[in-house]
């Protein structure tokens, strides 16, 4: 297990290297000179020269890259052009709302998705199965930001039950925090619950055909126990994989959802940085998110070993 873990972490090195390379060259894709683009048309040539030197743009590209790389691996992502503080600090200040929302929406996705998938697989082609699968197709086709807007329309504007936008930090109380997070997490999580439900259903259908399920049934075990004790564990293996990929979609969706509900998280930071052309912050956010995603996938791989003891990593 430890050997596997070490190998998995070592395998991450080339991936993170490519991630860092892509993020570095992102800014160099800007047509023209980044420094003059950043400063706008009214900048004096001496300002541009100063920023060029500050950004290291006057050095040859390979040495720029090496400097950037070594700085990045020390956790220094540079200074924000507009916020007047290090990018790492700006990112961490905004991390809480995003992390809370991602966690809650992942819970929403799992709590709706797995039971829905199992229920529809228990009686395939029943009306319940058909209804649930229509919802699943709707779920993967619906734009999350539009669903969020409709939630605001119904639950905030018409019913006035929950706040339409904003965020209250965890430190101000859990309930208050939740009241702001319910609608965003529901609209973000629904989409992924549909995906999880579909995977769960198809792997459940497959598992129910297996010999060990027949054995469990023929020894007189109650159907409920067959499903919960014998089938569920095997259904979870492909489901956990999807939850890993779900996370990537959730992060992307989080950016959009933060705009809809005006939540001051990393997504709002990215978008406002895009509109202000604050490239160091964009680079930092993208790098931070990619690293988080790679880490999540590592955790998913490790979870496998616990869910499925047959998996032996040699």
């Amino acid at each position: 297990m430890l050997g596997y873990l070490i190998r998995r972490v070592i395998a991450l090195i080339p991936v993170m290297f490519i991630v860092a390379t892509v993020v570095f060259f992102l800014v160099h894709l800007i047509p023209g000179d980044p420094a003059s683009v950043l400063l706008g048309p009214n900048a004096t040539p001496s300002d541009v020269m100063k920023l060029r030197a500050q950004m290291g743009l006057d050095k040859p590209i390979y040495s720029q890259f090496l400097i950037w790389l070594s700085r990045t691996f020390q956790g220094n992502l540079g200074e924000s052009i507009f916020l007047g503080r290090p990018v790492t600090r700006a990112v961490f200040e905004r991390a809480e709302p995003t992390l809370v929302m991602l966690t809650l929406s992942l819970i929403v996705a799992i709590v709706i998705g797995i039971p829905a998938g199992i229920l529809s697989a228990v009686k395939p082609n029943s009306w319940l199965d058909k209804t649930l699968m229509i919802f699943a197709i709707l779920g993967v086709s619906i734009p999350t930001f539009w669903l969020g807007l409709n939630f605001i329309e119904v639950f905030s504007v018409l019913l006035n039950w929950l706040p339409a936008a904003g965020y209250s930090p965890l430190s101000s109380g859990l309930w208050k925090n939740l009241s702001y997070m319910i609608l965003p997490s529901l609209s973000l999580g629904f989409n992924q619950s549909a995906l999880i439900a579909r995977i769960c259903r198809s792997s459940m259908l497959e598992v129910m055909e297996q010999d060990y399920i027949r054995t469990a049934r023929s020894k007189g075990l109650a159907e409920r126990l067959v499903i919960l004790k014998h089938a569920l564990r095997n259904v979870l293996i492909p489901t956990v994989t999807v939850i890993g990929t779900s996370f990537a979609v959730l992060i992307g969706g989080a950016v959009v959802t933060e705009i809809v509900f005006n939540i001051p998280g990393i997504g709002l930071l990215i978008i406002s940085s895009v509109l202000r052309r604050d490239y160091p912050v964009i680079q930092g956010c993208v790098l931070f998110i990619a690293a988080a995603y790679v880490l999540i996938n590592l955790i998913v791989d490790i979870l496998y070993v616990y869910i499925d003891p047959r998996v032996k990593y040699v």
Partner: protein
Amino acid sequence: MEIAVEEREHLEEEMSLKVSWLEVFKHKGTAICGAILLFLTLFTAIFAPHLTHHKPLRLDVNIRLQGPSASHLFGTDEFGRDVFSRVIFGTRVSLLVGGAVMLFTSLIGVILGILAGYYDYLDNVLMRIMDGLMAFPAMVMAIALMAVLGPSVLNVIIALSFIYMPRTARIIRSVVLVVREMVYVQAARALGARDLRITLKHILPNCVPPLIVQSTFIFAYSVLAEASLSFLGVGVPPYIPSWGNIISSGRLFIREAPWMSIFPGLAILMTCMALNLLGDGLRDALDPRMREIG
């Protein structure tokens, strides 16, 4: 003896492939639904100017924020523009982006996938690069690319092609890895066929079914992603009527004019549902191995 059996199995496989093309629409009601809906969307995009007598860009402040009525089916927006005609014309942007991304990802994905699957020495390098690119959540990468490239329809197509291409490349590679070990490919090689001939005659045809399935889903993702990018203000420039743009301005008037966001949202929902239904049907018929992936 063994070779003969394998060959026959393969022949049957190939024949079943041809039959199943028809079977898709015979047995899959949902796939037919999807195809019909998609056809309607395509029809709307092509004949957009004939479906409405309003101009999508025409401003008239006297009728701003009016609710749905007989003359303005979906109401009007904050500048008095007809939302119905904007949604109709938005179909063009969505299908253009979706179709172009589908084309580019297929083209580049097939080339990279075949190179990686066929030549061992390229496999490791190409697949590590693909892993690296896939380590970015798609939407985040798309936003970052759009930040650099600037908002335009072409740039949306470039950005989305870039982020979805690795998926296609991976799927094609996995098909090639299986097919190149097939007896008939080795036989062709033994007969002295060149790599290019083997690729075009024996490997490429096997890539087509999974490619079609994957492309249908990429089409659906792209429609959603373009709408999201435009909604965020980093996609299609605001003066072009696209579904995401209409919802983005509708968001500011959610209390006074909910119709501004409801109708374009329904259009996105319908188009993506059509593509997902079609994709599901095609997958069940063409690529039974992929069924469990969902």
